C-alpha cells in the first residue's frame, strides 16, 4: 500500500476523534431527552452540548484541512457509480456533522438556554427565546440526527464491504492496521 492510499495523519486523527464524540453524543442525546428533570439531566444536557460544539469545531478544522489536502484516490476497481455515491455520502456527512451542532445551538437559544462551552465559554444566542421555534428546531435536530445515523450505517457498511468482502485495503485508508509502505 503506497503512502498516497492513506489519508494524512491529521485527517485520520480528526476522523476518529469526531467519530468517537458522535458515538458518545448521539446515544446521550437519545437517552437524556426523556429523563425526568433532575440535576443529572441538566449535567447530561450540558455534556451533550459541549460534545456537539467540540464536534463542530473539529469538523470545521477537518473540512479546512480537507480543502487544502487531496484525499487518497479510491482503488482502481471501484465502479463509477460507487465513486459518485461515495462523494455524495461524504459531502452529506460533512454537511450534517456541521449542521447538527448548529441546529442544536440554535434550538438551545430558542428554548432560552444559552450554550456555554464547558461551562466557561458562552456562545452568543443567535435567536431570541421563542417556544414554537424551539420545538421546530428540536424536530429539525432530531431528523438531521437520524439522517446522519442512516448515512453512518451506509458509510461504515460500505467501508466494511470493500475491506472484507472485496478485499480492498479500505480500513487502512483511515489508519486501521499496519502502515505498510511498498
Amino acid at each position, binding site marked *: 500500500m503506497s503512502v498516497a492510499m492513506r489519508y494524512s495523519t491529521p485527517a485520520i486523527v480528526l476522523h476518529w476523534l469526531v467519530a468517537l464524540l458522535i458515538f458518545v453524543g448521539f446515544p446521550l442525546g437519545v437517552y437524556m431527552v426523556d429523563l425526568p*428533570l*433532575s*440535576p443529572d439531566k*441538566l*449535567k447530561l*444536557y*450540558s455534556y451533550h452540548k459541549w460534545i456537539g460544539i467540540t464536534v463542530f469545531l473539529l469538523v470545521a478544522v477537518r473540512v479546512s484541512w480537507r480543502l487544502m489536502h487531496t484525499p487518497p484516490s479510491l482503488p482502481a476497481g471501484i465502479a463509477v457509480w460507487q465513486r459518485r455515491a461515495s462523494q455524495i455520502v461524504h459531502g452529506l456527512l460533512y454537511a450534517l456533522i456541521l449542521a447538527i451542532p448548529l441546529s442544536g445551538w440554535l434550538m438551545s437559544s430558542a*428554548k*432560552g*438556554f*444559552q*450554550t*456555554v462551552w464547558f*461551562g*466557561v465559554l*458562552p456562545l452568543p444566542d443567535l435567536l431570541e427565546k421563542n*417556544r414554537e421555534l424551539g420545538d421546530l428546531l428540536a424536530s429539525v435536530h432530531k431528523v438531521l440526527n437520524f439522517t446522519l445515523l442512516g448515512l453512518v450505517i451506509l458509510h461504515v457498511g460500505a467501508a466494511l464491504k470493500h475491506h472484507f468482502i472485496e478485499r480492498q485495503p479500505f480500513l487502512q485508508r483511515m489508519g486501521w492496521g499496519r502502515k505498510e509502505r511498498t
Partner: protein
Amino acid sequence: MKITQLVLLAALAAPAAHAVEYRTVLPKQSTIHFEFRQMGVPVKGGFKRFTTEMAFDPAKPEAARAQIEIDLASIDAGSPEADDESAGKLWFNRSAYPKATFVSSQVRALGNNRYEMRGTLTLKGKSREMTVSVTYVPGKNASIFDGSFVLKRLDFGIGEGMWADVSTVADEVQVRFRIAATGTY
C-alpha cells in the same frame, strides 16, 4: 394685583408639589424577574402575578413602606419543564406555600435617588431579613422604582434533596423588580 395673586398661588403650590406620595401601583408596568446559573448558564425567569402596596414620599423616605405578595403559580422558571418542577415539594412546595411575601421594615436614603430598603422575605414558610437596593426614577406620569437583591435559595429550602447540589443549580439568585407607581399630591 393679579400678578401678586399668581405669585402667592405659586408660593403656596410649590411646597405642595414636592409633597407627592406614591401609592398607586401600575401592575402592567411592574415586573419581577430573576436570574440564576445552571451548569454555568444564566437562566432568566420571573413572576407574572403579584400585588404591591406601597407608600413613598421623596421628602420623607424614611417613612416609606412597601409590601409585595407574589403568586408563585405565575412563575416562569425558564422552561415549561422547570415551571412544573418548581411547584414540587423540593422546590416551592406550592400547594402548602402558594405565596411569597416581602414586607419592608426600614428605608434609608443613600443620595442620588438611591435607597436601601430592609425587610422580611417569606418563602416556603421561612422568613429572612433582606437588604434591597432601590433606585427611584421620577417620571411625568408614573415613577419607577427599580430594585435588586441577591437571595440564596438554600436559605429558604428552595431546591432540597438532589437539588441542594449548587454545582448544578447555583445557590445565588439575582432578583430584579420594577414597580411603576403614580402619586397623589
